[in-house]
């Protein structure tokens, strides 16, 4: 019984904690061109603390990121995308990161699998 009460308390604590942090979604356009770029951006964000998920739609090039406000905000996310080498909304790409991208992803050309 004691354990049950302790467990319940932990659960409630968890819930009240969860109420402190908000989960928001941001959407912005990127300069991604192909599957490779999509994978690169999604991978970087999905393994960033605070990101619930990141999804890029290649048809529209719009990146959707669901994130926890406790760790991140939209500006930080755009900064991350820029550091990968892509324009993120109004934030221009990081020139150094862009240089190290494969040729095809830079020239907006063909990215063969």
């Amino acid at each position, binding site marked *: 019984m004691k354990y049950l009460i302790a467990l319940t308390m932990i659960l409630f604590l968890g819930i009240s904690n969860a109420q402190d942090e908000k989960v928001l979604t941001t959407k912005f356009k990127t300069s991604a061109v*192909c*599957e490779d770029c999509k994978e690169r951006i999604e991978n970087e964000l999905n*393994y960033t603390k605070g990101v619930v998920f990141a999804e890029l739609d290649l*048809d529209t090039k719009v990146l959707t990121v669901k994130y926890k406000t406790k760790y991140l905000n939209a500006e930080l996310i755009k900064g991350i995308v820029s550091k990968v080498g892509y324009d993120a909304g109004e934030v221009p790409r990081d020139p150094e990161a862009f240089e190290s991208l494969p040729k095809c992803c830079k020239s907006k050309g*063909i990215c*063969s699998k």
Partner: protein
Amino acid sequence: MKHIVKNAHVLMFYMMLSVVCQAQEISGRIISKNIDGQEEGIPAAKITSSRTGEIVLSDSEGNFGIHIHDFPDTLLVKSVGYDLMAFAVTEPKSGLTIDLTSKNMLEGVVVYGEDLGKHIDLIDPFNVEKIGQDELRKAACCNLSESFETNASVDVNITDAVSGAKKIQMLGLDGIYTQFQWENIPLIRGLSTSYGLSFTPGTWIESIQITKGTGSVINGYETMAGLINLKLKQPKESEKFYLNVYGNKFSRAEINMHAAQKLSDKWATMTFVHASDQFLHTDNNKDGFRDNPIGFLGAVMHRWEYEGDNFESRFGFKGTYSSKIGGQTGYLPGTIPDEPTWGASFDTKHAEIFGKTGFFFKERKHASLGLINQLKYHDMDNVLGNTHYHGTQKKYYFNGIYTDILGNTNHTIKTGASFILDHYNQSYNDSTFLKTEIVPGVFAEYVYNRLDKLILVFGARGDYHNLYGPLVSPRFHAKWNVNPKSALRLSVGRGFRVPNPYADYASLMASNRQWIVDPNIQPEDAVSSGITYVQKFLLNDQVSTISVDYFYTFFLNQLITDMDVDPQELHIYNSTGQSYSHSLQVELSLKPFKGFEFRSAFKFFDVRAEFNGQLQQKAFVPKFRVLLNSGYTTRNKKWNFDVTANWVGKKRLPSTAQNPVWYRRNTESIDYWLLNSQISYNLKKISFYIGGENLLNVIQPNAIIAADDPFGSYFDATQIWAPISGFNIYAGLHFSIKQKKH
């Protein structure tokens, strides 16, 4: 009133405007560049608006115009001989240039290549299913035989209760009627037929293409039930470094590694290593026999790739060594037990060198010449109780294929010649068999392609076998896109196969049945025909597929393995009566919401031949099978969940009526469900997985007949229709470092 009229005018104006806005034209030209950099218009290239599905074709100069209703849109451009390209358009434009040969430079062009896991192409005239990386990862264990776990077209069965080996079935027909290749080089053939599936580690495979029914003539005369072609990992595209570690409940441990290196723009190399070992014996069904053999398997491969301007080449070598011990748990070779124990050992050595070379011609840009060479050595030494089999195969294989167009790309021709030299030296107990097969052959295939919508393939090949004379195999394939989202395919063709009974049915040596083999074996000869219909549809913006196929294979001659004459004898002879297979498959694959995929397949097999003088269903082939598979990937792609359920219907079993009562078995097996599941957790470079096989713990009761008297004449460990070793739990990890692309 006036206002209303005025408003109506305004409304009409807006309506007209919106119509204008909705249908704006994009125009331009589809071109290719030849070696000298000159532009040439590509006629009859297919341009599809991916939003509306509207299709237009480029004219004789390559010019096109298409209406776009909503921006942004993506134009899909397809022309024979070029990769499918997707071209993003964001605003109305004219004078676009789409260069199908360029590797870069153009605004918004991507070559379309989504890794859909498993997919069925709508353009290929052959009914090819592709199993990609996503799908292969769903069944993390262990070798090629497990790679088909989530695929409906290929069924996998355990061969016997001793070797632990698995065999495939297509169209209800034994795996020997399916031709195996890797990158168009023969893979499982001759002596490796019985246990060959375990020699290709699963992690080496990039993708698998499965063609149901008869295949193209350029691959040889042997496709009857199907053609399976593997693409192994490629030096330029694969991970720079990859490591996989795996362990399971039965003490099987496995390590797989490969590393690739791009040396220059032209040269790349790659090395593969595999080692697996099972060190503890398990006997879950408590019959005194190891459920799986213990022992070691090691495999290496090293390959090179060269890509020049008019010339490319791939070559390398492969080597496999395997040493396994099965049979009664007390058996260990080299030790003398207190009482006689039934033991089995399987020792295999395999080595091959291979080379593939392709030439392109400056003056004829659609022409190419491909040459394939393979030199192979295979040695197999099996002991099963008092039976001893030893076989050595030395093989040389050559295939040369010239491809060109006739006039324009609507007419393609592939022609060439092949040569096979096979030398077999086999011994079964005290009999020795020596055989040399020399088979030169020529072939031609003509492809008529009408805008990719209608494709007709006429093929024929003639081979001359030094022992059996001429073998003529005509083939015909057709594909028609009834509408842009569906394809109807027809195939009919003849195939041959020269049997090698002791190697093909080596697994049947796990019994004390006396082998009675007809000394005058003739080539197996079958005509296979099939019809396939695939329909794709959109469900919640995701592509779903329904497919139906029906195949009929009729054997003009088949080598029958008859276990029905007498439970203590195995008769192997040319079929005298009818032998055929009807196979029907209905498959539905749905993606009801993001990240979730559901697949279900229903299969019906009517496979009959004359056994013991009576036309009856082939033993161990169920009449009905069902496959259910569902997978879910979280939106951040960190977690994958996968569940596969296979229902295997009742199978006819060979008669054991002549045995003493306690060694008799039913003439029909019971149906059962096989349930597998796997969960993966992915990090940036590492992914962990844990899974279970046969989770309902289905075990065939009393699998081995006369397990208590293995040296007696009733002993038989080949009457296997269900798993013998109970559920399995495994865990492992993949670690990979990607290659930097340039």
